[in-house]
């Protein structure tokens, strides 16, 4: 019997390697590459045209703000591009056609391609200044190179507070070069929210006597105030996708619940009314689900839940950490970003609904809070006290480098950023 086993094993040894030589090979999965921005070369003719240079600088700063690209002028190419080891991913050619008003032609080429990916003519007029030309060019570039929406013309609303001053809602351009005060009432204003059509902004006004919700058109400086029943105190709200209602958190007798406020009928529908505190509601884009925060499991240990408005079922999605809050739906409704407290510091996390995977996007011994998505879902804006006081930063949805958004003085606190849709 032993001899039989020995013989079987022996012949299996002999036949095993022989059979593999003709068979398949090993395959290894490599899934962790290093990030590298795509090199873009910009050529302008004539190279030193003053107005053209301004348009080019706007184009360049907005393109690099996306973190996808690194733009080089033709006369300042790095060695790797000069030697031809690595041809630029894209080349943008600008040909100045006219001056005063400026008119130029642009052509976008891919790597080693002879036909242009995009081309066209842009002209300065009364409505379109040179800066807008640069922003348009950046959006066109992104749309035609990577295939998604450019966000150079989007805006970010946030709460700004000078030292010992009141809180105000501010608007910032995408590249942070243009700041504009938005709220002018005498109260302290906070918790801004963009309507899905970007026409209106909603924010909460705190005065000494009461708390109100203000709705203000994004292009006007006059707000309309929403009033609520006595004994209830609004604590911020967000717009519904259709813009006809707002989800609002109302505090009643020490308990905060979530309501849907219909703007036309002025009726309140109770959505979530648990015995615990429920806050920070946010609609998904298709208005089928609401994500919110509740400390129903343990007091003062908020966790994030998703409520299905059709089935009326609610499920919890965060289980790690004692403090998870500020959830926001991604524009396509497939992911949620939120802040979570880990080892004493708030960090930004991304949750994917299809995989139930939580990915930490920020790290470090400082707080990163109140995240919100960019309109194309490729970036995140959040506030961080990395440099001392809280400031606004951008990062990609995959994490990585943090870019400071604004250039306000150090004494100004910037919190609660919300990106236009």
């Amino acid at each position, binding site marked *: 019997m032993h001899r039989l086993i020995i013989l079987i094993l022996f012949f299996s040894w002999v036949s095993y390697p022989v059979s593999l030589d003709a068979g398949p*090979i090993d395959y*290894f*999965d490599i899934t962790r590459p*290093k*990030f590298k921005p795509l090199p873009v070369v910009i050529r302008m003719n004539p190279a030193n045209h003053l107005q053209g240079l301004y348009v080019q600088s706007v184009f360049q700063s907005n393109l690099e703000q996306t973190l*996808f690209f690194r733009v080089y002028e033709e006369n300042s190419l790095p060695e790797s591009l000069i030697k031809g080891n690595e041809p630029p991913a894209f080349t943008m050619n600008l040909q100045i056609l006219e001056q005063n008003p400026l008119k130029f032609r642009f052509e976008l080429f891919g790597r080693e391609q002879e036909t242009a990916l995009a081309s066209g003519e842009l002209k300065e007029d009364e409505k379109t200044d040179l800066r807008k030309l640069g922003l348009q060019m950046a959006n066109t570039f992104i749309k035609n190179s990577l295939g998604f929406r450019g966000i150079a013309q989007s805006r970010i609303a946030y709460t700004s507070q000078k030292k010992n001053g009141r809180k105000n809602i501010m608007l910032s351009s995408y590249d942070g070069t243009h700041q504009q005060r938005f709220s002018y009432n005498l109260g302290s204003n906070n918790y801004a929210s963009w309507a899905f059509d970007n026409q209106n902004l909603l924010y909460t006004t705190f005065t000494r006597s009461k708390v109100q919700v203000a709705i203000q058109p994004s292009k006007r400086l006059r707000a309309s105030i929403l009033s609520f029943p006595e004994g209830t105190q609004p604590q911020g709200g967000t717009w519904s996708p259709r813009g006809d209602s707002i989800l609002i958190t109302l505090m009643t007798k020490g308990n905060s619940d979530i309501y849907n406020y219909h703007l036309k009928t002025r009726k309140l529908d109770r959505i979530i009314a648990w015995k615990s505190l429920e806050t920070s509601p946010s609609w998904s884009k298709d208005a089928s689900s609401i994500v919110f925060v509740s400390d129903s499991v343990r007091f003062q240990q908020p966790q994030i839940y998703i409520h299905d408005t059709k089935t009326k079922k609610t499920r919890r999605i965060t289980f790690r950490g004692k403090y998870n809050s500020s959830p926001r739906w991604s524009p396509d409704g497939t992911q949620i970003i939120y802040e979570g407290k880990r080892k004493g510091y708030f960090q930004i996390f991304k949750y994917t609904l299809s995989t139930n995977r939580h990915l930490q996007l920020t790290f470090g011994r400082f707080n990163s809070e109140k995240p919100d998505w960019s309109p194309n879902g*490729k970036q995140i804006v959040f506030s961080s006290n990395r440099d001392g006081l809280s400031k606004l930063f951008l990062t990609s949805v995959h994490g*990585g480098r943090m870019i400071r958004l604004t250039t306000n003085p150090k004494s100004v606190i910037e919190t609660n950023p919300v990106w236009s849709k």
Partner: protein
Amino acid sequence: MMLQLPIWRYPAVVIFSLGLHGILLLIIFSEYRRNPPPSQIEWFDLREMTLSPTEIPEKSQSASAISAVPKKQEMVPQEEGKTEFQTKTKELPTVIIPPAKTQNPEGKIETMVEVGKTEANALPNKEEQITLENVRTFLPVMIPEQELTERVLEPGSSPSQLEEITIPEITSKPVFSLDDVLQDTRSFRSQTDWDENSEEQKVSSSLGDLLTGIRMIRLSAKENKEQQNMRLDSLESEAYLQDLNHFFTQHWEVPLHLAESELTVVVRIRIDKEGRIQKSKIETSSGNAELDHSVSRLLKNLQSLPSLPYSYLGHIYEFGIKFTPRDLQF
């Protein structure tokens, strides 16, 4: 009647009980330290024993394989330093069988010992020993000592020269049966070893060795070894994947918009044992020009990969890599 104790005494009883158990464990542990059980059994292999001529009869008594042989007939008396048997005892798989003697029709016994070879070489190999006919052939008819004369070949004489010993006609019966020999052969570990002088790589066929040290023995011819591609075993594969992951995290760069994508470029690479790339090609494109470019740029700039695990026996290794930029590193 139940025992009523004040409530504070219950934990005291538990603590007291735990204490006693602890003391008991300490005693057991100290005993264990003082007299540890043998962790390894010492095995003796008869092959490693060199038996002096005077010891052989006594030692052989203890060997199970010769237990059936009467003492007075075990050994043929020989002069020290004269016979191959005495000097090559170490090499023998077994010491039980004296130099093979067969009776020819003329009443002569031929000993098949050749100069310059061990008796083990002279003996038939394993298969032959356990074959019925061969064993019958080599089983000696026991010869009375006083009637046996033997002449041993001197070094330098012809290897093919045979000893010729004249003996009287044998009338004695065999001392042990064929079944005994077969049974002893099975139970005797050293009997089952391969011939060490074989050209092939030695393969232990002992069942115990097979089970404790299972390892693929490659029996391919030497000249084909360099041409063959072998696969890593699971441990080697795991270790090498770690090396590759670490390596490509440093060298493979992709643009941001490809992060978390499920696009995959499949590459086939052939390397030598030190990791030098001999050949590489993109086997399957991802369909995305940027991802394909990132991989082709990587392959273009690479000259070597992490070296193969030391335990890998081949000289080349051909394998595939699936590049999927799922988790971007910043």
